[in-house]
């Protein structure tokens, strides 16, 4: 039996290769994800071990209660006198006060825009404390004057900076953001010949300048770096220093710091992992359809052979085992190839992010996951066809004709029930009734719905493709292609369903995003009564801000009626992170946002006072006069009195405090200003004037309403672009499925093709016939996908109506594009099968038994 399996595999190399490709791709992404995680993890470990190699122990201020995650910590500076305290601890060789803050953004000499090593990469500013094992000057000298700096080689490369040249910096200081020009006197690199550690930019000043710029006064440091005396254990030293400095300061060994930092960075890049696993999931899900189809066709083709084996005495289980053994071998081979490709992909991505310094490794879990996924998916997909094979009666060997089409009643009924089940799960997930399992309920619901629709597909396949094919039926070859498509509705349906999955996912996401865009746009139209908006797009931990002076100047401009500025912070409210807005003119903010008072007064705010929206008040059972405890990024929790409650609008929600509190915010400068003009105001003219006020600030732009809407929705475009990549992948796999189906059909219809060629069907006509079949299948799949996706998207938007989705909009142009793309995909998929069909030897085909 095993020999029969191997032989049968070898005789079907091509079609099995095609169906295995889908598994290969899926396994590739799984393996890639694991390899990447491993490589990045080890790279970060080594990087941060290097970065902290010169530090035995570090002292910083203890974060405030509740500020536990890396992102929310805003540590207070350490006073200079503490350096002496630490220096005096037994076993300390040197204690150095270091200023190191993410807050010195370099500007490009060419464009004036901020130079960044990449999205979210920090721009450090600090004090130059001399070279050590980690940091070495590559050229130039240490800064000695107030206007001198040294920069890391990474930054020098980014902006093509040279020694003695000028550099403009945008420094975030407690007094606001200021732009200043410095002279570069040195360029430094890191040990191991690295230009930067992770792609960050770093600018080092003299200690006094660094303190003045970044802390607003001298005598303050970010941290104290300690080198232990020879023979001192860092852990013991840490404990002694801890004792000396008391509980207001946090003391950690270099090793502990490296670990914390590395973990944080790993977490930050884990999204790549999720993307790869998402790709893997889609590839494998689509792959199941293709494998199922291939095995179904193979079993159908071998009907008589299998029946003969049964007649000769093989048991049902032996047949089942034989077919599953084939699947197992394919799964195994696909896993090996996929693993190899995954290692390559993982390494490529790591290299792309410059994170392959630790070298490529293949962790055991990558191997285990690859084989588990590859084999299980293949065998599960082959199970149904195998079961059908085992049920072939021995009599089939003696019967002449192929078995008639099985009725579609059962499959349709099953499909209906499964679709309903999937949709129900989806609904439960979307309406938030699944609690912690929401995400999985939604994903599961979507997948089950897809399976249900796939099962329903055969019923609609025949009429649908027949109708679709009419477009191409103006010539005989087209008509033949159209009829061929309708010949085996199950096969056409599964092939099309594979394509449906990708298109449906992308259509659904596009529908959700276009609805979100439209909703935002509608909301802004309705609830934003401002002519100009001053804001910036956040690209790193530090939000773009502008000087409060701009507000004063803007208010003084002619034609400006009202200006409301906003500061934002994530505060701790009962230990929970809560978004808080501060404003310098609450009355203006409320009126521009279309909000009105529900209780108390919302037109003035003093220190220690807060207004909040009616929903929050209801949820937390608060009324005017209640007290809430709020701790900002730079303050401990303190009581605030509720002085007013307003009706929530899409623009105004949450807690609002007065601008005085913003000194305790992470960003002490305003991030948003809403400007309303008086009746005579010319938007363009005032916009130019405000832009002049902000000339020094490349991060902030002034938008009119439509620009602002575009800005707010631009994020969706980025995500959509990314989603298209997902579609491309799903389509690629689906193309394999279409090719597979066509090749198998051509093999089945060899004699027919021979006859057609004999009676005068030309090569071009043969190609046209196969292309029509391919295009019709593809278009059918895309139509299903667009339909299912639009439905899925609409359901999601409906379910999220309360979350701000006010408008349902379909991305019509994208949907049309998907259909066109599917047509092109159909044409491409037909190329190889058509070549095969055209090269057919007519005589052999006619003689074919």
């Amino acid at each position, binding site marked *: 039996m095993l020999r029969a399996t191997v032989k049968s595999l070898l005789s079907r190399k091509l079609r099995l290769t095609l169906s295995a490709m889908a598994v290969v791709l899926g396994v590739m992404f799984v393996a890639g994800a694991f390899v990447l995680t491993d490589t990045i993890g080890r790279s970060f470990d080594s990087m941060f071990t290097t970065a902290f190699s010169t530090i035995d122990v570090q002292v910083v201020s203890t974060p405030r209660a509740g500020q536990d995650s890396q992102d929310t910590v805003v540590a207070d500076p350490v006073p200079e006198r503490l350096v002496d305290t630490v220096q005096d601890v037994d076993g300390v060789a040197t204690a150095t006060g270091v200023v190191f803050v993410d807050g010195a953004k370099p500007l490009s000499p060419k464009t004036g825009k901020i130079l960044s090593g990449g999205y979210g990469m920090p721009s450090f500013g600090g004090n130059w404390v001399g070279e050590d094992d980690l940091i070495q000057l590559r050229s130039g000298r240490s800064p000695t004057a107030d206007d001198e700096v040294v920069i890391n080689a990474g930054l020098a490369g980014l902006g093509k900076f040279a020694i003695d040249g000028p550099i403009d910096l945008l420094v975030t200081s407690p007094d606001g953001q200021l732009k200043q020009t410095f002279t570069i006197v040195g360029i430094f690199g890191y040990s191991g010949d690295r230009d930067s550690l992770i792609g960050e930019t770093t600018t080092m000043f003299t200690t006094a300048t660094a303190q003045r710029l970044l802390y607003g006064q001298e005598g303050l440091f970010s941290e104290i770096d300690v080198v232990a005396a020879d023979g001192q254990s860092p852990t013991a030293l840490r404990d002694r220093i801890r004792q000396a400095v008391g509980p207001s300061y946090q003391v950690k060994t270099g090793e502990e710091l490296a670990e914390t930092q590395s973990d944080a960075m790993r977490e930050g890049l884990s999204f790549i992992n999720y993307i790869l696993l998402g790709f893997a999931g889609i590839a494998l899900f689509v792959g199941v359809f293709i494998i199922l189809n291939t095995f179904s066709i193979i079993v159908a083709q071998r009907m008589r052979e299998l029946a003969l084996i049964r007649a000769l005495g093989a048991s049902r289980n032996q047949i089942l085992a034989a077919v599953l053994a084939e699947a197992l071998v394919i799964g195994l081979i696909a896993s090996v190839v996929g693993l190899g490709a995954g290692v390559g992909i993982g390494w490529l991505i790591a290299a792309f992010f410059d994170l392959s310094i630790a070298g490529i490794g293949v962790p055991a879990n990558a191997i285990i996951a690859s084989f588990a996924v590859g084999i299980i998916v293949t065998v599960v997909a082959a199970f149904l066809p195998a079961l059908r094979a085992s049920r072939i009666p021995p009599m089939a060997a003696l019967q002449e004709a192929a078995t008639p089409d099985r009725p579609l009643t059962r499959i349709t009924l099953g499909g209906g029930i499964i679709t309903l089940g999937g949709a129900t799960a989806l609904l439960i997930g979307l309406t938030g009734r699944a609690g912690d399992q929401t995400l999985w309920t939604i994903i599961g619901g979507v997948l089950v719905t897809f399976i249900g629709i796939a099962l329903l597909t055969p019923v609609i396949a025949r009429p649908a493709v027949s109708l679709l094919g009419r477009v191409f039926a103006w*010539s*005989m*070859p087209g*008509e*033949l292609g159209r*009829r*061929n498509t*309708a*010949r085996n509705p199950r096969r056409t349906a599964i092939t099309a369903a594979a394509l449906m999955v990708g298109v449906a996912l992308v259509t659904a996401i596009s529908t959700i995003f276009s609805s979100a865009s439209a909703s935002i746009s509608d909301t802004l139209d309705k609830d934003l009564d401002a002519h100009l908006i001053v804001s910036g797009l956040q690209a790193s931990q530090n939000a773009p801000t502008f000087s409060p002076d701009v507000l004063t100047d803007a208010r003084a401009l002619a034609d400006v009626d009202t200006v409301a500025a906003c500061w934002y912070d994530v505060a701790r409210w009962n230990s929970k992170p809560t978004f808080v807005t501060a404003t310098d003119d609450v009355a203006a903010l409320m009126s521009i946002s279309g909000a009105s008072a529900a209780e108390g007064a919302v037109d003035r705010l003093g220190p220690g006072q807060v207004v909040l929206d009616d929903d929050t008040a209801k949820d937390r059972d608060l009324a005017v006069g209640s007290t809430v405890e709020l701790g900002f990024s730079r303050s401990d929790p303190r009581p605030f009195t509720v002085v007013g409650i307003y009706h929530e609008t899409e623009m105004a929600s949450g807690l609002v405090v007065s601008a005085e509190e913003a000194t305790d915010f992470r960003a002490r400068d305003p991030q948003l200003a809403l400007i309303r003009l008086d009746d005579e105001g010319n938007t363009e003219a005032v916009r130019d004037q405000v832009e002049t006020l902000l000339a020094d600030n490349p991060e902030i732009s002034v938008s009119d309403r439509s620009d602002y809407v575009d800005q707010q929705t631009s994020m969706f475009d980025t995500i959509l672009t990314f989603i298209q990549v997902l579609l491309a992948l799903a389509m690629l796999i689906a193309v394999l499925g279409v090719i597979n189906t066509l090749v198998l059909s051509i093999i089945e219809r060899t*004699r*027919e093709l*021979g*006859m*057609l*060629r*004999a*009676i*005068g*069907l*030309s*090569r071009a*006509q043969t190609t046209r016939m196969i292309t029509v079949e391919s295009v019709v299948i593809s278009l059918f799949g895309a139509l299903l996908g667009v339909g299912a996706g639009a439905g899925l998207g609409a359901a999601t938007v409906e379910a999220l109506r309360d979350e701000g989705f006010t408008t349902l909009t379909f991305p019509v142009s994208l949907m049309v594009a998907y259909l066109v793309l599917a047509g092109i995909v159909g044409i491409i998929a037909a190329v190889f099968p058509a070549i095969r069909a055209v090269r057919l030897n*007519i*005589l052999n085909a*006619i*003689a074919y038994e």
Partner: protein
Amino acid sequence: MSATVTDEDIAARAVDVWKVYGSGEAEVIALRNVSVTLKRGQFTAIMGPSGSGKSTLMHCLAGLDTVTRGTAQIGTTALTGLSDRALTTLRRDKVGFIFQQFNLLPTLSAKENILLPLSIAGTKPDQAWFRQVIEAVGLSDRLEHRPSQLSGGQQQRVACARALASRPEVVFADEPTGNLDSRSGTEVLGFLRNSVRDFGQTIVMVTHDPNAAAYADRVIFLADGRIVDELHDPTSSDVLDKLKSLDAAGPADEPFGAV
């Protein structure tokens, strides 16, 4: 063979045709210097044991296979050296085929199958001719049926009608009765015979069956790649006798075996 044949009388002709498959050790000579002229309006049967080259001769004459040496022609068109495109057009317009396995398209109705060569060529059928043909094959009431709804004999009659639909120069029939019971076989042969008589259609038929060959005006016998004999207006027993004498003369192990 009659001595004088004018060009207009020629439906198909082979002159000094050699067909060699493979080379060296594996060389198989299927046709050795075969010359034959098929006259317009004649029903010719080609007979011979398996491997005698009768199918090869037909394929070469029909433009399905190329000759190694010599020339083949249909009407006045020489096939040698024609491109695939030209050969395809030639087959479409000047040749009709009837296969042992019927070879109808299951997706098309009987009528659509019959008109398939015309549809492929993109020409309109001659309605009068079409009616004449379907009446002759007796399928008027089965036109909308699919092949799967027709009996073997009916399917082969559809195939016959398809071969005749485009009024080809020659119809080549490869064992047309091989898959039919004797009654259906007789019907099909009768139809072929009538179409020669009534429509002046030229038909070339390869067959094993002496009874089938007896319907032909002329029977050509092949053995070992050569034309060894021929009969005119034979009866089935004439054919059987001739076959027996050939059998005794040369080695032919399975005269009535499969193709």
